């Protein structure tokens, strides 16, 4: 059985649905990428699962952790899961740390909460964690405040804080988007190393397909609040089946090929208040016909082991040609 299992998860903000029934399983120890553009619901899925959305959000469906239901569970029950079983780090590390508390105290809070460590023991453990995530001279800098660290270092501190509860699953929500290229590389490396060392599972939420492909085992692509495709990383990147996934790949400039014009996806992401009928991607899709604009495709298993929600997935020959 999957460690975390999401079934038909739906979220609406002030009556506007933004997540239209997500099914997702995470096994112990695996790394899953969640890919999509802003507003596709990739972050909302996990904020909803952990009860971190603001009060105006209406969440239905089911999220189970080792069989224990989280949606509709008591606040105390969900608080026991957060940080201890499932930890989360965010996009903007500098504002994700509380500016008025020393970082040692912020890590210590997790240690006290999840491992009962206090005083000198907590301090020693916090220093060990900061060392582990690569903060230089941690013993001295544990008493500094967040503003005294750079963005990359703040993200390391966030990761140390997440590790403090020894979680089974780490949700990394765009953890490198706000960072510079060489720092991004450092953080990706750190996350991959920590996963290897601790054996925790990881969900890596990102719009950066390259980053996802470099550290995940499999990936799920979302569009307008739905999953449109999922597959093993190799298969997905070798031969994307959904026209949207394919469009995303084509839109990214290639470092090695000719400096040719890019192939954008025409049009824009639909407004959740006015979703098109049928497949939400159909207005931008080159393969869509009248049927796509009326009926909504379900996520269906494919011969290559992946799943895709499209009536006319890109067939194999054309894919090979494209990647030849």
């Amino acid at each position, binding site marked *: 059985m999957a460690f975390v299992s999401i079934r038909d998860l739906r979220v609406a903000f002030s009556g506007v649905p933004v997540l239209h029934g997500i099914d997702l399983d995470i096994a112990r120890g695996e790394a899953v990428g969640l890919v999509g553009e802003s507003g596709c619901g990739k972050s909302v899925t996990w904020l909803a699962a952990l009860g971190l959305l603001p009060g105006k959000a209406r969440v239905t469906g089911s999220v189970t952790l080792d069989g224990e239901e989280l949606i509709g569970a008591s606040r105390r029950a969900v608080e026991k899961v957060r940080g201890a079983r499932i930890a989360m780090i965010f996009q903007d590390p500098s*504002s994700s740390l*509380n500016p*008025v508390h020393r970082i040692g105290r912020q890590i210590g809070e997790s240690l006290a909460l999840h491992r009962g460590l206090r005083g000198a023991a907590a301090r020693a453990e916090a220093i060990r964690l900061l060392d582990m995530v690569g903060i230089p001279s941690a013993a001295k800098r544990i008493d500094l405040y967040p503003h005294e660290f750079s963005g990359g270092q703040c993200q390391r501190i966030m990761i140390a804080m997440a590790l403090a*509860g020894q979680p089974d699953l780490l949700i990394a929500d765009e953890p490198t988007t706000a960072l510079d290229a060489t720092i991004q590389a450092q953080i990706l490396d750190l996350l991959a190393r920590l996963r290897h060392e601790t054996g925790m599972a990881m969900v890596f939420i990102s719009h950066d397909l390259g980053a996802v492909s470099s550290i995940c085992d499999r990936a799920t692509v979302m569009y307008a609040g739905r999953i449109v495709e999922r597959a093993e990383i190799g298969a997905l990147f070798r031969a994307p089946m959904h026209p949207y996934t394919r469009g995303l790949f084509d839109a990214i400039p290639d470092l090695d090929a000719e400096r040719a014009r890019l192939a954008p996806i025409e049009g824009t992401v639909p407004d959740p208040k006015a979703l098109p009928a049928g497949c939400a991607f159909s207005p931008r899709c080159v393969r869509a016909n009248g049927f796509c604009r009326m009926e909504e495709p379900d996520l269906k298993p494919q011969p290559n082991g992946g799943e895709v929600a499209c009536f006319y997935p890109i067939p194999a020959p054309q894919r090979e040609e494209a990647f030849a």
Partner: protein
Amino acid sequence: MIRFVFLKLARALLTILLVMTFAFVVLRLSGDPAQIMLGPDAPQDAIDAFRARWGFDDPLWRQYLAYLGQILRGDFGVSMRDGSAAIDLVMERVPATLALTVPALVLKLAIGIPAGVYAALHRESIADRGVIMASIFGFTIPSFVLGLVLVLIFSITFDLLPSGGQDTWRHAILPILTMSIGGIGILARFSRSAMIEVLGQPYIRTAMAKGLPWRDVVWRHALPNAAVPIVTLVGFMLGSLIAGAVVVESIFSWPGVGRLIVVSVANRDLAVVQCLLLVIAATMVIANLLVDFTYGLLDPRLRSARPAH
């Protein structure tokens, strides 16, 4: 740190000096004290004698230098009405004013902040709407109207409390109420929006994602951050402890600093007005200093502008 304190103090003294100078010049340009003190029918030689007695014949700059010299020696001048020391006149009124403003400030803090925080934590609930409505009511009604309404209800209609004077603690109730209601409204409204702002910050989500119980998220993570803007407003209220009761003291015939201001200004009793303004400016400046130092305590980012790495 020492430099920081020194700079703040220097700036505070400069502010007081500017207020003093401004008051000195304006008071002397806005009416002849001799005319007002002695009445419109006073004989010319009496007026001349009065002017010579108080030094009004000298050029303005010489009067000003003399005044500064006096202040430096700790002499705040004497009242032109009865010749008693201005500073004594002011100081003997201060306790009466504080007897109103301090309890009023305590009420504002004790009701305004919790109400605002509670409303922010229960957004769009009935309690939140109630707090918003009550606070709008509180700070839109001018205190002279509110004072009169309270008198009408509690003194005239139900005869529960006295409508003026300073004889017993019961006399203080209506003035204190009048003074605090507006402040409660402002503080509630302000605390509510400060708290809502903080609750939307990413670090609150981090604290929740950590598994902290909601109580601890609010007490340890939200409130210390929301305190920074609230302190500004409280500092302003602290600064008006001495001068903030002019209207209320007049309505309830309370013999405090406010009434002294009204009477001395009307009489052009220069030394007293100047002394009053000096005391008021000093209170405001001290309150400001307190706010600045509290900022440093609350927010480490404001302690030093320089990053450590």
